[in-house]
């Protein structure tokens, strides 16, 4: 187990280094952030001074090594627009994204698991057909169309803040988190429902369920205790991976709802060509995905002892 974690951690480190290299190359290829662009004329002396201040006058390999060295001390550089340490921007936005991701996952599990169980237990019933049809259709709907419909119909209604947002107006967190969380959860919930239904059906066919019924357990106990535990395994795997993606920031959904998380931070950084922020958010997103998939692998072996980690 320890060996497995160590090996996966080493792999994760490689992935982070590779991803950082990719972002660095992309930022470099994009060109000089301080030069003249269109209507914005910058005197060459000032542009050169700016480049020197941010270390962009150094050769690229040296810039990369410096960045990687600083990274391990928590120094992510200074952003180009407000001259603030990038780590501060992350500290401001990461909790919002974590909140959004968790609320979305809770909605996701609640709808998906419930629908999946009902569909599996009452197989071929009206409820089953309904779940199957709705989930098949929902999987085809892009998240941003759902987001768009929600903004069109519900933003500004009742407690939900109007989009475009006014950031001078403070709103309670649950009012701004609900709509984007729902938009993120709906497609995922459809996946979870399908997965749950399939795995529950498979478990219900197994011998130990027949044994449980034979010894006279109530159907509620058979489903809720015996069948549920084992059929949750693939669902948990899926949800873990999905949570990793959400924690990394949902750029489209956060962008549509102008939700103040890392996704929206990245959205604005890309618009403003703010390279240090772009690099930092990408590293953060990749890290979230890598760490969550590691946790999922470990959890998987714990939940299903037949799986050996190697």
């Amino acid at each position: 187990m320890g060996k497995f974690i160590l090996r996966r951690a080493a792999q994760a480190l490689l992935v982070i280094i590779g991803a950082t290299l990719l972002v660095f190359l992309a930022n470099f290829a994009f060109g000089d952030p301080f030069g003249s662009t269109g209507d914005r004329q910058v005197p060459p002396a000032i542009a050169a001074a700016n480049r020197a201040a941010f270390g962009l006058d150094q050769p690229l390999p040296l810039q990369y090594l410096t960045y990687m060295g600083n990274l391990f001390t928590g120094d992510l550089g200074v952003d180009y627009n407000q001259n603030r340490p990038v780590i501060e921007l992350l500290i401001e936005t990461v909790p919002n994204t974590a909140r959004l991701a968790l609320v979305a996952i809770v909605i996701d599990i609640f709808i998906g698991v419930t629908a999946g169980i009902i569909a599996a237990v009452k197989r071929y019933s009206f409820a089953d057909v309904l779940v199957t049809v709705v989930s098949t259709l929902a999987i085809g709907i892009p998240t941003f169309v759902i987001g768009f419909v929600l903004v069109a119909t519900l933003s500004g209604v009742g407690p939900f803040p109007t989009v475009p947002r006014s950031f001078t107006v403070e709103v309670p967190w649950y009012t701004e988190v609900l709509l984007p969380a729902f938009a993120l959860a709906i497609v995922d919930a459809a996946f979870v429902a399908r997965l749950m239904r399939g795995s529950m059906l498979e478990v219900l066919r197994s011998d130990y369920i027949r044994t449980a019924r034979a010894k006279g357990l109530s159907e509620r106990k058979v489903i809720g205790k015996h069948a549920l535990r084992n059929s949750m395994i693939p669902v948990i795997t899926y949800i873990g991976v999905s949570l990793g993606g959400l924690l990394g920031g949902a750029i489209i959904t956060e962008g549509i709802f102008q939700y103040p998380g890392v996704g929206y931070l990245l959205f604005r950084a890309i618009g403003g060509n703010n390279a240090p922020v772009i690099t930092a958010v990408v590293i953060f997103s990749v890290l979230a995905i890598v760490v969550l998939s590691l946790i999922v692998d470990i959890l998987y072996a714990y939940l299903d002892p037949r799986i050996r980690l190697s």
Partner: protein
Amino acid sequence: MVGPTRSPASPPTAAVPAKSRRPTGQFRDVWRRYRRNKLALIGLGIVGLLVFLAIFEPFLTPYSPFEQNLLNTTAPPGNGHVFGTDVLGRDMLSAVIYGAKLAVIVGVVTVLASLLVGVTLGAIAGFAGGATDAVIARVTDTFLAFPLLIGAILIVRTFGAGILPVIVALAIFGWTTAARLMRGQTLALRENEYVEAARSIGATNSRILTRHILPNAIAPVLVYSFTSIGVVVVAMASLSYLGVGVPADIPEWGRMISQANAFLRVPGKSHLWVFPSLAIVLTTLGFAFVADGLRDALDPKLRGRD
């Protein structure tokens, strides 16, 4: 193992024992199983319609999809414009049809490009094993951990907005799943006796890969590629929605939706985003249904699993 089929299109009586028929080709066999699935047929219809629109776009659009009429903007459906007109006074129906052409071209080319990279790397990794496999696996992991949209945005930002940069960007981050599928398949197949037999009569590695392993390994990759065309169409629309996809003057579904942003809660203007949204949803569903149908038709053992 063989339970009742869930598809309403195939009552048990329709399941004629395949063995009693005269020998048929593999293609006819697959088609026979495919057409039992009603959703798969609907999906095929949608995909067929899209391809039809893409090919005959110049003859089907009632107006030029680029022609603006600033005196007649955001007109509701009717009055010569079946879907109404957009914010620049362009005919929405023509723009949506042009968008279908764009979606088909970008979807198919992107997926073909990522298949080329993914299948090649995956087959090599699975077949060679050892250090080659390890290196390819780490590269795949790196690209896989990169969120598709974020990666694509970085690339498109570098090369500028345009159809080709979108294709390149989505292909660069889209090949990983194909590589993984192909690697797994190759790993499983290379131990088979017929591979050993081929080797014993002196077949080269490349011949074994292309003639013996590839045809047997390609089915799940094919199924996946149909699903991923839908993913690509959505990703392109998302990029355009964010303003980093295709240039603003090209009628693309995501771009059309983002142009409707300002009219979101204006009564009577919902045609601005409803039609392109419906087009995207139908496209994704169409390709997903075809992929589902293909999965069942290509591998009867998978039937009934979700």
